[in-house]
C-alpha cells in the first residue's frame, strides 16, 4: 500500500474505534470531536449506501465499455489483448483514484480494482486458449498460481481483503492439485499460519493489510478442513469447496483424515481460547458443526429431528450458561473474555437477524388436503419459509 494511504488507514481505524467508544458511552461528544481533530481524515469517502451505488454503477459502465471494445474485433488474440489492456487500464485508474485523488471507501475505486483483477485473469485465460495450450492439470495448476499471485498483489497494493481471500482460495486449490497436494497443503498451512496470525495483529502493517492477513488465514484454515474432512475424501465433497477443481485423493491415508476431522475443530477452538482469538473460536465452532454432521452421516444413532431439537436446545443452554459464567466473574469477565458488548455495534447483527428471519422463519403453510380438497404449495411472495411442508 502507498504510505499516505496506509497512514490514512491507521487514522481511520482510530476514529472508528473512538466512534465505538462513543456509542458505548465511554467518551462524550467533546472527547470524540477531539480525537477526530487529532486524527483527521484526508481521504474522500462515501457512506455505505452511496458506496454500494457507486460500485454497482461503475461496474456497469466498465462492463459496457469493455463489451463495446471487444465487439469491434473478431480475432481472439485481439480480444484477449483488449481485455488485458482494459484490466491494466483499470489498475491504473485504481492507482490514480487511491493516489492523487485520495479516494478510499468510495465504491468507484473498488469497482475499478475489481475490473482490473477480472480483466487480467480473463485475459490470461483467453491468451492460453488462443495459444492452443490444452487445459490439463499442469496448465490449470499454473493458472491457479498465477490467479493467486494477481489477487494477492491486488490485496497487497490496494488493501482490499476480499482479494486476499481469493488469493488464498486459488493458492490452496493449486497446491491441492499437485502430487501429494493434501500433505503439502497441511505443511504449508502449519508453516504459514503463525506468520499470518502475527500479520493480522502486527503494528507494522496498516489495518487493511491486517484484515487481508486475517482473510487469507481464514480461507487457508477452511481449505485445510475441507481438504482433510473424511466425508470429503470418501464422497469427493471437497469439490464443493474447491469448485470445479476437485483435488484428487493422492497420498493421504484415510485414518489420518478421520483423526484430523475429529481433532482439528477442538485444536483450533483451544487455540482461540488460549490466545483469546475470536477468529479461531468461530472457525473451531464452525468446523465442530461440520464434524458432527460428518459423524451423523456415518452413524445414524438417532433420527434427524432429535438431532436438530437436541442440538438446538443444547446451543440455547450453552449460550445462556456461557453468559452467566462470564457475567459471574470478577468485573464481568473470566480469563480475558466478557459477555459485554464492549462498544460493538449491535445494530448490524440485529439487521442481519431480521433479514434472515424474514427469509427463513416465516411460518410454514398448512395443507388440509383430506378434508377441504385443497393443496397449499407455498406463498408467491413474502414468505420465504412458506414451503408447504406441513
Amino acid at each position, binding site marked *: 500500500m502507498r504510505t499516505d494511504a496506509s497512514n490514512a488507514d491507521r487514522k481511520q481505524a482510530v476514529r472508528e474505534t473512538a466512534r465505538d467508544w462513543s456509542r458505548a458511552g465511554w467518551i462524550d461528544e467533546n472527547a470524540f470531536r477531539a480525537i477526530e481533530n487529532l486524527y483527521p481524515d484526508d481521504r474522500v469517502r*462515501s457512506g455505505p449506501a452511496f458506496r454500494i451505488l457507486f460500485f454497482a*454503477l461503475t461496474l456497469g459502465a466498465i462492463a459496457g465499455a469493455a463489451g463495446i471494445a471487444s465487439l469491434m474485433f473478431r480475432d481472439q488474440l485481439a480480444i484477449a489483448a483488449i481485455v488485458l489492456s482494459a484490466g491494466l487500464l483499470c489498475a491504473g485508474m485504481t492507482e490514480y483514484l487511491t493516489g492523487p485523488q485520495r479516494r478510499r471507501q468510495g465504491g468507484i475505486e473498488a469497482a475499478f480494482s475489481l475490473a482490473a483483477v477480472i480483466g487480467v485473469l480473463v485475459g490470461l485465460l483467453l491468451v492460453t486458449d488462443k495459444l492452443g495450450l490444452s487445459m490439463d492439470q499442469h496448465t490449470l495448476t499454473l493458472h491457479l498460481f498465477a490467479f493467486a499471485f494477481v489477487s494477492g498483489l491486488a490485496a497487497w497494493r490496494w488493501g482490499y481483503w476480499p482479494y486476499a481471500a481469493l488469493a488464498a482460495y486459488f493458492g490452496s486449490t493449486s497446491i491441492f492439485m499437485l502430487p501429494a497436494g493434501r500433505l503439502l497443503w497441511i505443511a504449508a498451512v502449519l508453516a504459514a499460519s503463525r506468520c499470518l496470525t502475527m500479520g493480522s495483529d502486527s503494528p507494522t502493517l496498516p489495518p487493511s493489510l491486517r484484515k487481508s492477513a486475517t482473510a487469507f488465514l481464514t480461507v487457508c484454515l477452511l481449505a485445510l478442513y475441507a481438504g482433510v474432512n473424511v466425508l470429503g475424501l470418501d464422497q469427493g465433497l471437497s469439490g464443493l469447496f474447491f469448485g470445479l477443481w476437485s483435488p484428487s485423493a493422492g497420498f493421504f491415508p484415510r485414518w489420518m483424515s478421520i483423526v484430523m476431522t475429529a481433532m482439528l475443530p477442538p485444536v483450533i477452538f483451544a487455540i482461540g481460547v488460549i490466545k483469546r482469538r475470536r477468529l479461531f473460536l468461530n472457525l473451531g465452532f464452525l468446523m465442530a458443526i461440520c464434524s458432527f454432521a460428518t459423524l451423523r452421516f456415518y452413524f445414524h444413532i438417532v433420527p434427524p429431528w432429535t*438431532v436438530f431439537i437436541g442440538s438446538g436446545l443444547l446451543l440455547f443452554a450453552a449460550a445462556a450458561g456461557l453468559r452467566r459464567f462470564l457475567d459471574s466473574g470478577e468485573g464481568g469477565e473470566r480469563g480475558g473474555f466478557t459477555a459485554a458488548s464492549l462498544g460493538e455495534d449491535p445494530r448490524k447483527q440485529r439487521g442481519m437477524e431480521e433479514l434472515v428471519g424474514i427469509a427463513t422463519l416465516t411460518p410454514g403453510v398448512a395443507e388440509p388436503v383430506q378434508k377441504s380438497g385443497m393443496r397449499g404449495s407455498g406463498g408467491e411472495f413474502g414468505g*420465504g419459509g412458506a414451503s408447504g411442508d406441513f
Partner: protein
Amino acid sequence: MNPDAAKAIPEFARRGIISRERASLLLRIACGDLVTVHREIRLLFYLGVLLTTTGVGLLVQRNYRHIGPVTIAVVIGAGAVACLSLAAKRAQPFSWMETPSPSLGFDYLLLLGVLLAGADLAFIEIQFTPLGAHWPWHLLIVSVLMACIAVRYDSRTVFSIALSTFAAWRGLSVSFIEKPVWLASEESVRMNSLGCGVLFVLLGSFLVRGKKKPHFEPVAVHLGWFLILGALVSGIGGGGAEGIVYIALLSTTGAFLAWRSYSGRRFGLFAFGVFAVYLAAIGLVFKAGLGFSGDLACIMITSVVLIALLWKAQKKMKEPV
C-alpha cells in the same frame, strides 16, 4: 487487537481526552487482553432457535402418525407456552417507546416461543381443519398474534416475521382461495404485493406519527418498499404495452422514493430508489431493441449519468462513513 488504537490511547489519556481509569480498560481491549464474545453468544442463541424450529418441523412432518396428532399439538403448544410465559415473566413493563431487553437471551426465547406457537397453529390447521375452506386465514391469525407479541415485548425480529407472514397470507389467499375474485393469477399476486407494500409503508408512517413504537418503522417501511419495487420489477419483463407501463411505473416510483429519501436523508431507501430507476432504464434499453452494442452503449451512458447525479446528491446528503 487494534495496535493503532493501543498506540493512541496513552496520548489521549495524557491530553485529558479520556480518564486514566478508562484508558486502562480501553488499552486492555485494544491490546486483546479483554475480548468480547457478545456477538458469538447471540449467534449461539439464534442458531439454537433455528435448529430447534427445524427439528420441530421435521418431527411434525415425519412422525405425527407414530406419535399421534393430539400429542404433538399438545407438546409443541406446551413448549410454546413455556417459552412465552418465561419471556413474559422477565419482560419489562409495557411502553410505546423502545425498551431495553432484560437479558441477552430474552429476544431469542421470545422468538422461539412465537415460532413454536406458529408451528403449532399450522399443525392444528392441517390436522383438524378448524377453518375449513378458509385455511389460509390461519396465517393472518398467526401474523396478528405475532404483531401483538412484538408490540408488547418490543421485538423487531418478531415484528418483521409478522409482516412477512401477513404478505404470505395475501399471496396464498390470492393463489388458492380468491381465484374467482382476481381474474389473472400472476397479475393478482403482483397487485396484492403492491397492496401489502403500500400498507406496510403507511403503517410505518403511522408508527412514527402516532409515536407508537417508532423504532419499528424502518422494518415496515423497508419491507414495504421492497415489496412495491419487487412487484414492479417482476412486471417489466412483460411483452408489449404492459412491460412499458411497468417500466414507467418503476422509474416514477423509484424517482419518487429517491426524492423523498433525499430530503429525509434515508440512505438505504435512497439506494432502493436509485436502483429502481437504473433497472427501469436498463429495461427500457432492452425493450428499445438497439442491438447488442447499442444496448451496451446505453447501459454505459446511463451508468455514467447516474454516477454524475449521485456525485452531486452525495455532497448534499453527507452520509456518515
